[in-house]
């Protein structure tokens, strides 16, 4: 399996190795995982989880309530045990789905200092660009079909496609414009729900960022439809809000339409701004260039650059966890607009109001919601659950290889 991600993978992003107390299925329903039952108080701040019995970590040490409490305590929660249960005081009302967040995975440090989880695979080897997972023979939901998974990181799209074609890789990460070629070489395409937000972010403190009309004009001048159809090959959705429709349910209330005439009215003078995109992301560079063409018609000149300091940044932000409220808060934090995000109460309505207020500041301009796309070789088969969860995580426990195929 090959992953293009250059980002460092955190512990929590390996659900195959580290598990959470509960998990979300493909319909977003909470299912038991390490915990078999749970309850909470009326305020939603005190939770009690009954752990699955006879669980062991990968190194054979038993899964005890203390270990779980210790792992969960790293989130700033007050955790303890009460008999066979783990008690968690969250300090603020949380929904049970938040315990499915991969960052709340349970792990311990083994005697050799390595991280031990409880998942269907254990971390057999970890180097800077390569990880090997070996099947956990004693996994509580059944040993996975695959014996081992080798994960290589840091390869280019070209290399990955080639490896897939040559049969050297079974699962590769794909960009939207690689899908066609992967399909032609016989791969199957696994797509998640849109779990990445691509947006423009204004750099605080720069003159451009302080001109509200300019920000709004920029937002109105972008033609998302053309970029989505051509550059993103219709893989994804145009985004007017920060959260995708599948997560919030109200995303269609945010308009993603272009209004070049209104944008022109808002612009005074002939502003010149710089737009930086990730130097390693050629697609982002092309999208940035296209945005520059769009904004030119509104009278705003954008100079695109690869990296460096700029007035605007084209960024990608992962939308996680798959719960609307926390996801939005985390998005706001990663986009550096936490101070502009306020939710007056629980519930979707308040969340919507907070999101709308944030979006109408135009300090962050949502562009697209993009799915995770993977290409799978013909010999890689799934059993019951898809290998790629809707939320974009790998679910390798149900994968098997058809060894009859060459």
């Amino acid at each position, binding site marked *: 399996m090959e992953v293009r991600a250059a980002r460092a993978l955190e512990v929590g992003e390996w659900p195959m190795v580290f598990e959470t107390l509960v998990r979300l299925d493909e319909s977003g329903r909470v299912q038991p995982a390490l915990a078999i039952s749970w309850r909470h108080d009326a305020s939603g701040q005190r939770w009690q989880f009954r752990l699955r019995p006879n669980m062991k970590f990968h190194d054979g040490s038993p899964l005890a309530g203390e270990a779980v409490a210790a792992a969960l305590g790293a989130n700033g929660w007050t955790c303890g045990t009460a008999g066979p249960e783990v008690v968690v005081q969250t300090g603020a009302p949380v929904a049970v789905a938040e315990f499915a967040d991969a960052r709340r995975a349970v792990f311990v440090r083994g005697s050799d200092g390595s991280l031990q989880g409880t998942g269907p695979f254990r971390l057999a080897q970890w180097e800077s660009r390569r990880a090997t997972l070996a099947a956990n023979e004693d996994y509580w939901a059944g040993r996975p079909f695959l014996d081992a998974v080798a994960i290589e990181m840091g390869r280019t799209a070209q290399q990955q496609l080639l490896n897939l074609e040559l049969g050297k890789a079974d699962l590769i990460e794909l960009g939207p*414009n690689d899908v*066609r070629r992967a399909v032609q070489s016989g791969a199957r395409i696994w797509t998640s729900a849109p779990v990445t937000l691509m947006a423009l972010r204004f750099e605080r403190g720069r003159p451009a960022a302080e001109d509200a009309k300019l920000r709004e004009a920029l937002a109105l001048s972008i*033609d998302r439809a*053309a970029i989505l*159809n*051509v*550059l993103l*090959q*219709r893989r994804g959705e145009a985004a007017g809000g920060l959260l995708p429709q599948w997560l919030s349910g109200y995303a269609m209330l945010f308009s993603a339409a272009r209004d070049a005439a209104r944008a022109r009215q808002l612009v005074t003078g002939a502003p010149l701004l710089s737009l930086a995109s990730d130097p390693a992301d050629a697609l982002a560079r*092309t999208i940035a*260039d*296209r*945005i*520059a*063409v769009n904004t030119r018609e509104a009278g705003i000149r954008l*100079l*695109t650059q690869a990296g460096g300091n700029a007035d605007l940044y084209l960024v990608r932000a992962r939308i996680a966890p798959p719960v609307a409220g926390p996801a939005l808060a985390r998005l706001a934090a990663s986009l550096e607009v936490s101070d502009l995000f306020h939710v007056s109460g629980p519930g979707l309505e308040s969340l919507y109001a907070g999101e709308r207020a944030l979006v109408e500041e135009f300090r962050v301009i949502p562009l697209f919601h993009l799915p995770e796309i993977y290409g799978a070789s013909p010999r890689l088969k799934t059993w019951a659950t898809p290998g790629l969860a809707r939320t974009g995580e790998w679910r390798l426990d149900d994968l098997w290889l058809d060894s009859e195929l060459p």
Partner: protein
Amino acid sequence: MTFRTRMLVSFALAVVVTAALVTWVVSVMTRRTFEQADDRRTATLVAQFRREFERRQEDLVRRVEAIAAMQSTLDMAVELSRPEPDYAPYVNEAGALAAAHALDLVELLAQDGTIVSSAQWPARFGYKAEWVKEQADWKDAFLKSEELPNETVLAMVAVRAVSAGGSNLYVAGGYRLDRGFLGSLVLPAGMRVLLYHNCEPRFSAQALTDAAGPARGAERLAPLIEQVREERREATRTIEWPDGPETFQAIPLEGRQNELLGVLLVGSSRRELAALAARIHWAGGLAAGFGILLGIGLSYWAARRLTGPVAQLARGAREVAAGNWNARVSVASRDEIGELARAFNSMIQDLISQRDRLLQAERVAAWRELARRLAHELKNPLFPLQITIETLQRAKEQAPGEFDEIFRESAATLLAELANLKTIIGRFSDFAKMPAPQLEPVDLNEIVRGAVRLFDAQLRAGSHAPIAPELDCDPGLGMIRADPEQVTRALHNLILNAIDAMPAGGTLRIRTRRAEDRAHLEVSDTGQGLTKEECERLFTPYYTTKRHGTGLGLAIVQSVVADHHGKISVESEPGRGATFRIELPEG
């Protein structure tokens, strides 16, 4: 300036002028010939450049046609000819085509002008390029102002249409006319090309580039560019750079609608011509200089040859003037100089003969004068002698008794007259045997004072009116080398002469002074003076104006002065006295 120098200067001048004139004429003619040749060369180069430009255009058209003929392009055209075609799969095609066919610009445009894919501005997909619909059939390459994300460039563009399903897919390919393009042109040595991209109404130095980047000295080319912009015709101008002149031919670059997109400047370096001209000047100068030196040398030699005999003649004449009567001029040439030399020699010969005759005559005259003087001098004493002796004879005969008395008287008279005679003869003898002077340091002032003391009594003697002596001795007069006896004698003679010249008394003035390394002695009287003729004859021995005296006095003075290598002169006017001036060398 000597004759030789004058000759030399004349010759040299002639040579210099000739050399300079020749060099100038040759230089001008050569330069003109080279200029014409260079003009022809420039025209050839410009034509060559035009062909190269056309070749690039044809090459561009071929490449675009190759793209249009590709199967994948046809497939694309078929796909895009459907109703509501999907451009998405082709958005990166142009970039790949540009790379594969080594073009700077490639655009794929749909029938309605929609940009399907753009290599030079990939983000412009979906926008419309209306210009592609302006023409039905595209043939040749043309020039176009192409807009890019950050700039506008001049481009050479060719278009081909690919027909499929009733509609066209346009393939537009091109080269940027930038420094890369200019650098890729194959140009002969000494030639360069600059491109001015005309995008602003006013001249902008940044818009002028050559193969290396922004062109230097753009401001110098501004007038030429402006001229082309206004007149829309080609123009030529030569620009003087610090390292040599360069001729520019400016060609207007027009687009399809004859709009002026830029100006192409083809520069042909005149540096070689200038260097050649300079070399010619140098060579000419060198040759002229060499010629001049040679000319001077030859002039010198010629002058020498010509003036040699003349100099010889001059030298001979000088020698003769100095007294060397044996000087001869040996000139063997047969020209006028030779004649002159021979004439000179014969003249000298004649002069020598004349001098000898003159000498002879003078000697004879001197002898005659001496004989006359002697006869005159002797006549006087001899007459009484004769008388006395006759008296004696008569006495003996007539008065024997008184003979003893008469004999005594006569003997006394005879003895006196004989003594006189002896004196006279002694004077002559003195004059005759005046010896060479014995030179020794002598104080002339002392001699003068001594002489005045000696003659003091005579000056106051009552036999004539008193003569007042005046003495003016120069204390700065040092010692001179002279024979004191002879100088004394000369001085005595002059004083005696002066006394004799003032029978009525007067003033005797004696003056010494030193001037120019010579001692000057002046003896002046206030007597009757002498006429001019008398002055001339004065120093002839026996010339005297005195009634008595041998007239040897002044001759002795003259002899002494001559022996001392001095000079003597007299100055006088009748009634005004006479002044004798003697110059003696000091040593």
